[in-house]
């Protein structure tokens, strides 16, 4: 396939005013489907959050935002997402760096090894994690044999197991965007910085980090937005001991049947995700991020 555009084929984009073309109808089935099956339900959900049995009301939001219990739950979700993102970044950054610097077949192999776990079902991985966390599981086995602890300890349903599992499941989502930015980075820039007498820390802070910022933002946004909404992993690893927004939403619909509560919680989560996406696209557009 040639990239050059054939002359007989008209440029598609720079059309000043759009003209109806019968061929445009090929978009109709997909668009109509997505409008009905996606846009309408989401808008209805937003609508539902403002309605109770008596009509329009803000009762759902009053319940959620006025109750320290629910505020605490929103806090839990945000804390979970923040810590998961931070740990993923701390571990993922050097790992992605190494992956981007390695050349040849090894890069392909290591890349595949990072990528492969993504294709394994989250339920399966979380199941594996619960086995690892058992009193007679591998984590305790390692900790005892390496001499960190005397006797096996309880790990299941602790915050440690929660964060261990979250990082395990979502780490590739941090590494891949970082990797794709770092791969493009010209290593000569770093050499140049070093040859100008800059120390490694200085080079990292003034050259490497700013240049890889788009990857940090992309990976951070991705990991934050999926971990703030995570359901399976927290559910299996800590359960009710650490309630999150997801848990509340699921319970509201599946157990206690308080639809307005569920809808309000869902809209709040929607707002958090949307804010995050907007913020990250703003940050990416303003390179160098915080400096401006």
């Amino acid at each position, binding site marked *: *396939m*040639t990239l*050059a*555009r*054939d*002359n*007989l*084929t*008209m440029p598609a984009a720079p*059309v*000043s*005013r*759009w*003209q109806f073309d019968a061929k445009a109808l090929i978009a109709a089935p997909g668009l109509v489907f997505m409008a009905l099956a996606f846009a309408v339900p989401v808008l209805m959900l937003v609508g539902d959050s403002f309605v109770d049995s008596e009509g329009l009301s803000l009762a759902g939001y009053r319940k959620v935002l006025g109750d320290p219990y629910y505020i605490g739950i929103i806090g839990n979700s945000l804390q979970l997402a923040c810590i998961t993102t931070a740990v993923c970044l701390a571990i993922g950054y050097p790992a992605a760096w190494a992956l981007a610097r390695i050349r040849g077949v090894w890069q392909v192999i290591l890349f595949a090894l990072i990528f492969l776990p993504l294709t394994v079902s989250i339920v399966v991985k979380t199941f594996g994690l619960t086995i690892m966390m058992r009193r007679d599981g591998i984590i305790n086995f390692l900790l005892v044999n390496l001499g960190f602890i005397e006797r096996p300890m309880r790990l299941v349903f602790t915050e440690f197991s929660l964060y261990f599992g979250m990082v395990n499941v979502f780490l590739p989502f941090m590494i891949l965007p970082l990797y794709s930015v770092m791969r493009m980075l010209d290593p000569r820039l770093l050499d140049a910085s070093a040859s100008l007498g800059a120390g490694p820390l200085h080079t990292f802070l003034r050259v490497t980090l700013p240049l890889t910022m788009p990857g940090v933002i992309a990976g951070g946004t991705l990991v934050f937005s999926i971990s703030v909404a995570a359901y399976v992993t927290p559910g299996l690893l800590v359960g009710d001991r650490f309630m999150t927004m997801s848990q509340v939403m699921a319970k509201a619909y599946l157990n206690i049947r308080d639809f307005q509560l569920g809808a309000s919680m869902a809209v709040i989560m929607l707002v958090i995700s949307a804010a995050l996406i907007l913020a990250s696209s703003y940050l990416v557009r303003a390179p160098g991020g915080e400096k401006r």
Partner: protein
Amino acid sequence: MSQHATAMPPATEMHQEPSYLAVSNVTKRFGAATVLDSLSLSVGRAEFVSLLGPSGCGKTTLLRLIAGLLAPDQGAIEVGGRDLTRVAAHKRNIGVVFQNYALFPHLTVAENIAYGLRAKGVPKAEQAKKVGDALGLVRMEAFADRAVTALSGGQQQRIAVARAVVVEPSLLLLDEPFSALDRKLRETMQIELRHILRNLGITSIFVTHDQDEALVMSDRIAVMNEGRIEHLGTPSEVYARPKSLYTMEFVGQSSRMGGVVKGSSEGLVEIDTPFGLVRAPGHFMSGSRVIVGVRPEAIAAGEGPAGEYNTVRGTVAEVIYFGSRTLLHFQTAQDGDRLHVELNRLPDQVAPGSAMTLRWRIDDSRVFPAPTETGR
């Protein structure tokens, strides 16, 4: 150097023949922009017509309208007496050779050529024979089973031609088919393509930017400008007797002198130009502002007999040496006026600043009304 005007080939017979392709009063708008403005064009059977014009003048649009890939806002398109205006592209039986060939990379050379035959439901055995013939036509028999991505530009070009003609289209459209080739290859392909198409007797419309290509290949040339056809004629008509200043300047080099008509008699007008009094065939009111155009090779050094020649004097501004010929530029006070003279032999001691006498046949001068520059 004056054969051009006198040695006109008798090229008028095709105009009388009933037209095979008839584009009548076609208008095409994109939003507010009128890209083709009530354009008409008629082409005879087996004729090779080039569309020549600057970028954006609507050549591709016209071709796509004829092909049926676009629908006109007004007007009609007929081929062989059949009205095709409302016929879908795939039912028109019109062949197209695209600029980057648009060969199908997932098919072999032979499969590419067979594509149109399969679409038309030609039996397998006949397909194979026709594909073989088409490959022979473009001298690519040895490449039948190659991947098209493994061909050179010129080879891809040939396959594109073979694919388009194998279905025996009623009309062949070619949109700048040589623009991706280097100059040398382009020249060979021009001759070869012309030869193939003439043998097949296919009526062809050929779009090009390149005036030399148009002059070399065409039976007739349609010079286009801003969605209209400025001049439709044989290469020598278009070159030697352009109907408009635009055509004169777009096709080939030309000298131009602005001036005012002093008087006219016996089909000749006398014009006062910065280079002196000049006579040319035509009818203009005294006092009208006109432009006189002359081809550089029609001008010679030295005086000529007064009844037949224009003789002027000018100061050489620039001398450009090409080996076999030399181009002289003469300057005037007026902007836009320029006199280009092409000489086979450089007279002795010509250098910028020297004055020279020049002559050309009165018949070689063309006069056009000056573009009105009102409102300034």
